[in-house]
């Protein structure tokens, strides 16, 4: 079966292959042109309507906004090409007042078409087959070359190092009856590859996703991304027209049943924290698509959101990311093109070392949410926080239509878009996703150890702020005994949180004693970071890189574990 079959709704594909083949994305190329036309048509229609309703939204202002932002963007680029493009935008801005209406219409339509063509993805089933069958073999062989002597055993070997968990059976069932939006946490550029692998491993269908255009600069990576459903997101383009096209593209894909994937944090977490503030633009398209599906009375209108936590004990780009975080204090470079991800040999070295230890990475698929933040059960029904079933259509239906439906029918126009209401629903959804991210984050040995070391350092230098502490603490040593005791206290506190469903623990943190956790963390750190983040020196622990201690500690910074880490008397 090469296409989605509404009749299969409710069945739960049990094998990876069948779920993947149930995915609408295999139809993508056939619908590609139609999708682009639909996106462009809708954006154009909205612009015309907005201009009619509000003079400030007239086409002249749309063009002016694009020109203003493009001139600003191109300003620092001294190349001839950039100069020429900047000049063209300046000419356009100057001539706006003299342009006729048909000229303005033509320019706006051309821009919409250009952006839609630039964004649109591609899906080549042959590349997908190659990627899913051959690449894991190659990757596994690359990572564990000794296995070549025993023959290639496929991605099962890779799977030994990557744990994919969650209520996968329910998600597979939901994937067959609704459109899923996967929303992973974002730590590394490797996330796109990891989540692709995890979907396959979980027996979930492949998803189309928006990837930063900067990632397409690597030809090897670009080839696969181009052909596996990724669409391009040019984060440099900050003007409304581009964002409108991007959001409309996402909405149309969801309406057509293409499972999608967004990184709702927008970019990699610079500080190493679990995302607590989300970019809601693309996320809002889940609700827009749902309402549109209801309005059009489509047979499978549901759009469900599936948060995913990607949990690494080590992060490839940790050093660059935390440096960027500290340098710019939150105003970091939005797009980093010269980090560890740009060096292929660095990626290979990182993965080899990371995956030399068992169960290194954990991908946790959380339970599905409806666009209003309610949990969706295996039966596809939404449930409120008390577990009561709730009819999710009532959130977007007119009150009189709800009453009419209770009496046996639903009048036309029952479902309506409402910009203010829907923006707030999406805020609510964002809050729920953040809650789920926190609860399904897996605390790992490197996080726990870093938290303990940081808090002990802070106790040693109580008068220093974070930035002074960063400078002062490099090279400091702490008694191993003290750190081990702190790790034990944090493990205790984490167990209490985990029992309350507020965090998860890695196998190591859950099952090993404090010395074992510390030992594992030191092995991880010494395997990749140079100089090592922390080094054992006899009965003491030397701090090699305070910034990375902060980076790994930040993963656990919103759980209120500081007291347990710092003070014996606060322990359990």
């Amino acid at each position, binding site marked *: 079966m090469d296409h989605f079959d509404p009749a299969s709704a409710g069945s739960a594909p049990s094998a990876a292959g069948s779920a993947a083949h149930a995915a609408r994305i295999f139809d993508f190329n056939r619908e590609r042109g139609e999708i682009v036309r639909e996106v462009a048509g809708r954006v154009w229609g909205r612009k015309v309507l907005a201009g009619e309703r509000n003079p400030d939204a007239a086409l002249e202002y749309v063009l002016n906004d694009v020109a203003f932002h493009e001139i600003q963007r191109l300003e620092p680029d001294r190349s001839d090409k950039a100069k020429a493009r900047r000049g063209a935008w300046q000419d356009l801005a100057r001539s706006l007042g003299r342009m006729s209406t048909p000229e303005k219409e033509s320019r706006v339509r051309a821009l919409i078409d250009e952006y839609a063509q630039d964004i649109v993805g591609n899906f080549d089933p042959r590349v997908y087959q190659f990627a899913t069958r051959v690449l894991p073999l190659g990757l596994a062989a690359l990572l564990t070359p000794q296995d070549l002597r025993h023959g290639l055993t496929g991605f099962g070997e890779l799977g030994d190092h990557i744990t994919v968990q969650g209520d996968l059976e329910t998600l597979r069932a939901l994937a067959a009856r609704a459109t899923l939006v996967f929303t992973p946490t974002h730590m590394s550029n490797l996330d796109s590859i990891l989540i692709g692998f995890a979907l396959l491993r979980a027996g979930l269908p492949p998803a189309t996703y928006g990837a930063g255009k900067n990632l397409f600069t690597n030809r090897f990576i670009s080839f696969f991304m181009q052909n596996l459903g990724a669409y391009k997101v040019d984060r440099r383009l900050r003007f409304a027209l581009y964002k409108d096209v991007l959001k409309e593209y996402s909405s149309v894909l969801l309406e057509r049943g293409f499972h999608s994937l967004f990184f709702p944090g927008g970019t990699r977490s610079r500080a190493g924290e*679990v995302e*607590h*503030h989300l970019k*809601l633009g693309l996320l809002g398209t889940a609700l827009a698509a749902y309402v549109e599906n209801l309005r059009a009375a489509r047979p499978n209108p549901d759009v469900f959101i599936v948060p995913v936590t990607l949990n690494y004990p080590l992060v490839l780009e940790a050093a660059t990311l935390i440096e960027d975080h500290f340098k710019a204090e939150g105003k970091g470079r939005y797009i980093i093109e010269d980090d560890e991800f740009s060096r292929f040999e660095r990626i290979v070295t990182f993965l080899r070392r990371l995956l030399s230890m068992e169960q290194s990475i954990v991908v946790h698929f959380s339970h599905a949410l409806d666009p209003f*933040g*309610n949990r969706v059960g295996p039966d596809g029904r939404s449930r*409120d*926080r*008390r577990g*009561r079933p*709730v*009819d*999710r*259509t*009532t*959130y*977007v*239906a*007119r*009150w*009189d*239509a*709800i009453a009419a439906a209770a009496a046996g029918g639903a009048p036309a126009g029952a479902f*309506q878009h*409402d910009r*203010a*209401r829907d923006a*707030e*629903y999406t*805020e*609510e959804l*964002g*809050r729920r996703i*953040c*809650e789920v*991210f*926190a*609860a399904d984050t897996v605390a790992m040995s490197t996080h726990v150890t870093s938290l303990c070391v940081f808090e002990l350092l*802070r106790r040693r230098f109580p008068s220093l*702020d974070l930035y002074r502490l960063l400078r002062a603490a490099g090279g400091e040593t702490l008694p191993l005994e003290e750190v081990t005791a702190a790790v034990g*206290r*944090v493990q*205790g*506190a984490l167990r*209490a*949180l985990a029992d*309350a469903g*507020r965090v998860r623990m890695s196998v190591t943190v859950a099952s090993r004693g404090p010395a074992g956790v510390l030992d594992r963390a030191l092995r991880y750190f010494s395997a990749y970071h140079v100089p090592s983040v922390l080094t054992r020196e006899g009965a003491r622990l030397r701090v090699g890189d305070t910034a990375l201690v902060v980076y790994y500690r930040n993963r656990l*910074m*919103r*759980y*209120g*574990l*500081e*007291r*347990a880490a*710092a003070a014996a008397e*606060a*322990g*359990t």
Partner: protein
Amino acid sequence: MSTNGTVGAVGVVGAGEWAAAVATLAAQRGTVLHRTAPPGADAPGEPSFADLGARARLILLVLPSAEVRATARVLGDYLHGGHLLVHGTRGLEPHSSAQDAETGTGAGTGDGHEGTTENGANPPTAAAGWLRISEVLREETPAVRLGALAGPTLAGEVKRGQPTVAVVGSRFPEVIDAVREALAGPTFRVYGSDDLCGVELAAALSPVVALAAGLAAGLGLEFNTRAAVVVRGFAEMARLGASLGAKPATFTGLAGLGDLLASAQSDASADFRLGRALGQGTPLAAASAALQAEGATAEGLRMVGAVQHIAARNRVRVSLTDGLGAILAGADPREVVRGLMTLAPMSEAG
């Protein structure tokens, strides 16, 4: 006009004077379903919770903070996503799952990051150990479109038709519209605010200042002192509110300063009355019992501990509330006043 149809019947839940005043206002504009009986109690002639859910799109819960959760839990069985739920409670609820010393968690000493999320997992009040009433409603019902009604709204004056101005805090414009449609009239004007958090916090914190002002009056302290209590109390409220994510401007509006100007000088305020009785030497238990007999609730009593707890966690100075807490714990009020007057010199803005 909202996009979701007309308000239709309006539901009011609550037995207090303020609930009765709200029901009276709603009755002047249309059909009102008023339930005074708590869940499980017989309510002859009153709508059931099922009736409320079926017939009222907008439901106003006008209850003491201690009763909200139990009521919302039962009402929630009859609600769905189409309902608009607005409360008129001046208080917060202790957060049972708050991190505490028992688990070795909480009271972080981080870099000012804890509890400062925008759409994050740990809302600031919850992180500080207390829930706003809208957070309780979100936990107990499927309703998402929530709001809070607050302001200088002494119930007796509202019922007597005195011109009164209130504010509805909600992130959903249609909730504000619906409350206006349901309650606004020649004697009751409704402003809107998108700062739900701020409106709730201002309404929750002002009873503490009203209690302190009543206490000052009961002690026989005169206008200079009482003005100082109100102004410094207001400063504490605003600082604490800002630390919990409220917009400062909301505190200078109807829900904050507006509420205080009424409740901190009027015997119509239960908190002021309780404070006055305490200042006059009535033991706390007797003063509370007298209020209870009137069917009134002084939220300030519960909120003193909340303010002290949150302030300690968020490192906000609340000298006046600390003094009030000491008096409630048995300290001599005159000694407490003397202590406050001899605090180290500080800037007014500090």
